[in-house]
């Protein structure tokens, strides 16, 4: 939420706040010699710039959060589509402006809820079950895609969900040009860490490229068909600089792929956003600032992008789930608050804060509300966000930002020498680097060098958890599974079988050629073909099954 135009920005005691501060604002700036003054100003120009100025270490907006606070975007999904729809409405009621859907493991792996050998124990469990367009429609009932931007965390079958999204927009009679949102669609990080992939890299890239190409032709900026994600690597043990380096390299590899296909750098870069973890450290803030600077510099110098849209990096932040502990679980609220603060000090565009009781089961509504309120408090209550990049110019933060950038570019060099990011992933380089770091971290955690309050330090002093902290909300998985199977069976019975068969045949034959696959997938989706029918039964026989080293 932004503030009205002529607001005077001031501290609680009435001291006026400038939008941002620089060396000119140092208390004794006037006492410097004119030579020194000139050098300081020159240094600022060269390395810092102003907020909203290339290469954007200080943020991509001149006015920072004064105009618009980050979108609160709670990751949400469980059981069946109608149930999650209710949850989404609840979040909207709390003041959310962006929606973010979590799909269950079955959906993420491109399987259907009735796929017995795979789906048992997973349907609607860690996300919502969506098998067909009918589920997707129920998921968004009463939610205008024009009013709320939608983020979908889905990768392997991303093209199916992109198509469902387009189909739903059509049903809502919203022109594609008005759609805003994100589809994660980052198959490279899946190979590196999350492991939800099945096709060889080149086919995975092709599907990503098809969505990008389709978006460039039919959708406006503001819809991101690729959200290169470091979060999962970081949660899997990557250091901040590894997360930074590999995420950027993944995004660059995809951008290069799109450029090879003849797309334009401004069009592509303006439609790629990033997704980082935040553990609440200074290092995280440095990582965000370095990410913007590298993105802009590489985009301009290497890919020849020139537009502000393309060079100003946008990213989503989720705080670290791994940092949350089941021991004295309410302490997670404090962790989340500080992590949220770090995300905002680093200039995130959208944020999700995990709920405090999420470590062992799904969050309760009360806990979700605390997460939303945390973001509202950090963003609005103390007026702290009225100064843009308040930490910019801090000796420590600038030094750390520089160090992050240096470490990332060292990784870039190593990867380039290997023959590029795709090659490096096929060889398992980022995978093994992350594993190395995670082993070292586990060691440090074990010998107490990383203190965790209530776990390896200050634990057990005041007698443990309160009673209600041990109450967990669970899903009766088998019941949900049966319900979803019924929903799916109904769709399968009522759909026009020959239309499904025809659309899948078309998809299969176009997949063998070079055509853009969005339209054929859209046709299959509208015919009520299921996720598994499209991904596993139709596309996999064409593209093949590939496994990375050790998977």
């Amino acid at each position, binding site marked *: 939420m932004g503030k009205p135009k002529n607001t005077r920005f001031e501290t609680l005691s009435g001291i006026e706040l400038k939008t941002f501060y620089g060396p000119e604002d140092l208390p004794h700036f006037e006492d410097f010699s004119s030579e020194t003054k000139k050098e300081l100003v020159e240094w600022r120009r060269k390395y810092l710039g102003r907020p909203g100025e290339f290469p954007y270490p200080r943020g991509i907006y001149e006015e920072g959060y004064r105009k618009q606070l980050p979108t609160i975007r709670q990751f949400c999904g469980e059981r069946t589509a109608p149930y999650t729809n209710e949850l989404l409405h609840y979040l909207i009621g709390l003041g959310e402006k962006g929606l973010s859907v979590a799909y269950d*493991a*079955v959906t993420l792996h491109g399987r259907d809820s009735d796929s017995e*050998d795979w789906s048992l124990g*997973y349907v609607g469990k860690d996300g919502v079950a969506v098998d067909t367009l009918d589920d997707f429609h129920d998921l968004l009932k009463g939610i205008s895609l024009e009013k709320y931007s939608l983020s979908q965390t889905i990768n392997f079958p991303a093209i199916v969900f992109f198509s469902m999204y387009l189909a739903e927009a059509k049903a809502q009679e919203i022109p594609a040009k008005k759609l805003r949102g994100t589809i994660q669609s980052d198959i490279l990080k899946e190979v590196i860490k999350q492991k939800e992939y099945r096709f060889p890299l080149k086919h995975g890239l092709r599907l990503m490229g098809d969505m990008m190409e389709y978006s460039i032709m039919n959708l406006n900026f503001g819809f991101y068909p690729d959200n290169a994600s470091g979060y999962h690597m970081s949660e899997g043990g990557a250091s901040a600089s590894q997360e930074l380096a590999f995420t950027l390299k993944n995004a660059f590899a995809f951008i290069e792929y799109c450029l090879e296909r003849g797309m334009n750098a401004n069009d592509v870069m303006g439609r790629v956003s990033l997704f980082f973890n935040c553990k609440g450290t200074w290092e995280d803030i440095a990582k965000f600032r370095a990410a913007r600077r590298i993105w802009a510099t590489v985009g301009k110098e290497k890919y020849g992008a020139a537009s502000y849209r393309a060079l100003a990096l946008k990213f989503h932040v989720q705080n670290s789930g791994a940092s949350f502990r089941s021991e004295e679980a309410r302490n997670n609220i404090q962790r989340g608050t500080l992590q949220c603060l770090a995300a905002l000090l680093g200039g995130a565009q959208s944020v999700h804060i995990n709920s405090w009781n999420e470590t062992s*089961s799904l969050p309760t509504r009360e806990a979700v509300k605390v997460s939303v309120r945390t973001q509202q408090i950090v963003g609005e209550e103390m007026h702290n966000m009225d100064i843009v990049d308040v930490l910019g110019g801090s000796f420590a933060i600038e030094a750390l930002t520089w160090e992050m950038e240096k470490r990332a570019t060292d990784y870039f060099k190593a990867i380039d020498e290997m023959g590029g990011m795709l090659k490096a992933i096929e060889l398992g380089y980022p995978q093994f680097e992350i594993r190395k770091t995670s082993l070292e971290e*586990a060691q440090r955690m074990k010998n107490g060098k990383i203190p965790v309050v209530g776990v390896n330090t200050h634990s057990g002093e005041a007698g443990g958890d309160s009673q209600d902290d041990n109450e967990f909300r669970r899903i009766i998985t*088998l019941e949900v599974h049966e319900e979803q199977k019924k929903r799916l069976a109904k769709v399968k019975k009522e759909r026009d079988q020959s239309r499904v068969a025809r659309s899948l045949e078309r998809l299969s034959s176009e997949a063998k050629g070079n055509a853009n696959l969005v339209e054929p997938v859209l046709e299959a989706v509208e015919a009520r073909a299921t996720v598994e029918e499209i991904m596993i039964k139709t596309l996999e026989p064409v593209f093949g099954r590939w*496994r990375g080293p*050790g998977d």
Partner: protein
Amino acid sequence: MNRFLAGGGDRETDMRTPKILLIKPPLDDHDRPIYDLIVPLRKAGIDPIWTGLQQPWSQIVKTALEEDADAIGVSVHTGDPAILLGKLKTELERAGLSEKILVAGGSGEITLPDMQAKLAGLGYKVFLSGDAVENIGAYIMEKFRENQKCSVSITEHFESRLSRHLLAKHITRLENINLTLVPPPKKKSFRVLLAGPAGAGKSSLLNKILEKLELREIKIGVMLCDPRGPKEKGAFLGDRVWMQERTLSENIFIRSFSQLSNYSRRSVNFLKKVSDLFALWGADITFLETIGMGQESAARLGELADLFIWVALPNETDSMRLMKGGAHELADLVLLNKIDKEPSFKAELALKQHFQNPYFKVSAHTGEGIDEVCEFILEKIKNNPCG
């Protein structure tokens, strides 16, 4: 595994080292704990088997059946632990594998006390991230010893054709008791030995060869050998990872073995007996993938093989090396692997000069040359007198 493969111990009932099959449920991709467990388990004197991610229950159970591991370890980080582990338990029982030592671990719901009670009721011992890895090893060892003491040996009765289940059990029995007699099969299975240095790509080559042969409607037995270390007793049995897509085939039976590096008379006899058991199951071919080999002499290996294939890397194959002694002297066929990556002119010249038998240029990566290898093997079988 069996101490007689290590060349020591003469008593009939030498206790072998226990084997644990590590698995992730079908849609659980969090493999970090698996990698954290492998070496500590080896240190505890246990052979861990890891077969890869994203396998359906049918595949997991088939692997459990063939490996006949003493213990099964499941890591659950997503999904409903009670349902997933309950499903595994049911499937194991259905496959006649109800006697396994079951351990589980993970994060999320599995950490809740009532869930742990539920899993204990199913027969799982739950270990969490706070527990020392040593405890897992100690628990398995203790249970294993108990089981060994009171294990009822299967009857010596051999049916005309062994089922998959009985074959697995008979191999275990052979591992337990060295002197078990195996009746000679009516029709022997053709033994193909795949040897070569570590890292030559034997497993991925074998995977490609099996991919072609499984289309031919012939039954194939596979023995995969991995080494025990000089310091840590257990062996990491990891070759299955390279042939995951093959393990679902009804015509293929795969078993992993751990061993020390030398091929003693004992171990060769053991492997021969296993291949006879394979023949009793109906295997037309038995593949034996050796541990990585170098220049040690392993003349007895020759006794094992109807066809001895040496896998070599172009960059590591030259006249100097071929003139020296080594297991390659036994080879009927040389495969120059990774031909898509390394130039082969030097190796080819050396082979022409110093090796009388044929060689093929192959790539497990691109599939180049695999058809020719398969034809060669099938041709040999056709001309094999004992076949």
